[in-house]
């Protein structure tokens, strides 16, 4: 396949950069206080926040990784859609309203309300940093491959370019710039996948049955392409993955932070319902129409596959090749630009959350105990954004080659095991003590990270060992219940000092 850059692709790519920098310039003038920098002053409207939350969640993992996973494993990719969507409902039922009332800038604000704040802020912010950095790796992997295939720019250079852009957005435009980049990108993505789906269905005379029949006739799984089992997950692993996605969603720091950008709890909940609808639509189109279309039109097409049967650039690039098949260089350029905007928006949101953990939770509230000028806290936020950018670039290069969607599953495991237990228990269980929260949070964080390192995804695929120490690819089924259990047991065995109440 010819992967030389087209004029359309280059033009749209540069347009995305120009528009997002213009948004940042506009937002920079409106981001003077710490509240404006962290949460856009709490004045974002429900529809804006709803689309921005969708923009936060609809990442490279969803669009590029989702189609790539369907291309290789078929129907099992659907687990990565319904489970996060239910996680959104859990977030709506348990977290959204109370979070808005209790917190100010970060989810740790809410968790620390009833407990001794310093230890809670340390364990909460460490958990948030682990989640956001891992998520950032997935996004960097997507953008590296994307720009490499679009322009022939080396992977590492592409990752560095995106790292610099995200630091500029966050450092100068803060949450306001991030919000508008995210909602613009969510609308572009929704338009892009709708256009692709329309063209894909047109090729099959607008018959999903015909599309599915063509895909099944070509794929090595045959009719099983549309049956569960393609990922080869055992019942335990499947349950663990779903648990991670369902409990991890209400523990994602960058999404929780969005509830502070709206004026009140009602708006927070309304915005979440809007985002669930947008995300559900995009998930459906990506997995149930574009995934099968990628197989039907690319899998046996010598113009779009290599000798191994894979598309050039790997499975994460199926979306782009499908766009070129359906609409030539013009559609390829449009979809590549949409994917690029998608990644820019998500990495910006992640950077805001990570930098806030450092500047607000660790620096302002722990290291200097609240004795800090707003000017200095904003400076620390900006320096932290640069640090996160450097870390994101380094880790993105080091993890080259991992499947994006799989990495996302690991991120959700950490969020489900560390962030969610701390948050929900701190808000709703009045018997929880600081010692219990810290012990449970540390257990969840340590177990989820440790089991991931010792499991097949890192021990074998990254470190090159022959067999994993722990043969479990998704650890949440162990680490999340363990976090809750330790929290309860330690809380029952300890008493909260009166000064902390």
């Amino acid at each position, binding site marked *: 396949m010819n992967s030389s850059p087209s004029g359309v692709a280059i033009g749209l790519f540069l347009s995305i950069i120009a528009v997002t920098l213009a948004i940042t310039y506009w937002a920079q003038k409106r981001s003077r206080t710490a509240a404006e920098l962290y949460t856009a002053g*709490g004045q974002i409207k429900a529809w804006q926040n709803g689309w921005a939350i969708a923009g936060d969640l609809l990442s490279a993992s969803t669009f590029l990784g989702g189609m790539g996973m369907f291309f290789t494993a078929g*129907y099992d990719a*659907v*687990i990565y*859609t*319904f*489970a996060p*969507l*239910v996680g*959104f*409902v*859990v977030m*709506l*039922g*348990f977290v959204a*309203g*109370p979070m*808005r*009332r*209790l917190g*100010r800038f970060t989810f740790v604000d809410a968790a620390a*309300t*009833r407990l001794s704040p310093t230890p809670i802020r340390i364990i909460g912010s460490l958990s948030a940093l682990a989640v956001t950095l891992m998520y950032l790796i997935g996004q960097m992997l997507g953008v590296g491959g994307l720009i490499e295939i679009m322009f022939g720019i080396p992977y590492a250079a592409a990752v560095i370019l995106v790292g610099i852009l995200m630091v500029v957005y966050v450092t100068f435009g803060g949450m306001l710039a991030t919000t508008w980049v995210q909602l613009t990108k969510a609308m572009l993505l929704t338009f892009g996948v709708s256009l692709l789906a329309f063209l894909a269905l047109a090729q099959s005379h607008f018959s*999903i*049955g*015909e599309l*599915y*029949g063509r895909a*099944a006739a070509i794929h090595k799984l045959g*009719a*099983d392409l*549309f*049956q*569960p*089992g393609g990922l080869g997950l055992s*019942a335990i692993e*499947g*349950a663990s993955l*779903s648990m991670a996605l*369902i409990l991890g969603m209400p523990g994602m720091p960058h999404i929780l932070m969005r509830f502070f950008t709206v*004026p*009140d*709890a*009602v708006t927070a*909940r*309304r915005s*979440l*319902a809007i985002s*669930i*609808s947008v995300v*559900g639509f995009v*998930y*459906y189109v990506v*997995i*149930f129409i574009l995934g099968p279309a990628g197989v039907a039109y690319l899998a046996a097409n010598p113009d779009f596959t290599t000798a191994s049967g894979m598309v050039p650039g790997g499975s994460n690039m199926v979306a782009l090749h499908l766009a070129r098949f359906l609409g030539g260089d013009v559609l390829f350029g449009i979809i590549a630009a949409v994917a690029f905007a998608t990644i820019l928006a998500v990495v910006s949101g992640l950077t805001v959350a990570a930098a806030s953990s450092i500047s607000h939770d660790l620096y302002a509230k722990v290291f200097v105990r609240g004795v800090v000028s707003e000017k200095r806290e904003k400076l620390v936020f900006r320096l932290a954004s640069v640090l996160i950018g450097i870390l994101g670039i380094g880790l993105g290069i080091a993890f080259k080659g991992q499947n994006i969607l799989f990495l996302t599953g690991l991120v959700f495991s950490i969020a489900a095991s560390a962030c969610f237990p701390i948050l929900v228990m701190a*808000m*709703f269980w009045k018997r929880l003590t600081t010692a219990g929260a810290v012990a449970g949070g540390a257990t969840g964080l340590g177990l989820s990270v440790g089991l991931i390192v010792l499991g097949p995804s890192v021990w074998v695929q990254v470190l090159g060992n022959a067999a994993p120490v722990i043969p479990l690819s998704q650890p949440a089924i162990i680490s999340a219940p363990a976090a809750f259990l330790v929290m309860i047991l330690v809380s029952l065995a300890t008493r909260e000092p009166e000064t902390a109440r």
Partner: protein
Amino acid sequence: MGGNMKAKVPDIQLDIRGAAYAILAVVIVAGFQAMYYLAPGALARPLWDGANLTLAFLLGTLSLAIPVAIAWWMIRADTADGETFDTSQH
């Protein structure tokens, strides 16, 4: 939505109704996923004779539609309950 919005200090209570709906959504998709392992043959059954679309397609569609419907149902009666910008800034 739980909690007294006029309180001067944070007063957060679990929204029992919202929690119940969230748990309902979890139970529905857990049941769907359990079919992966308990009744894979049923999922492979065509929706009608000769169809390429199977029960897995229908249930997969519902697994995405039901959470969206539940979310809108959950917020249908949301009111500010006396909440003001100040009380939401606890």
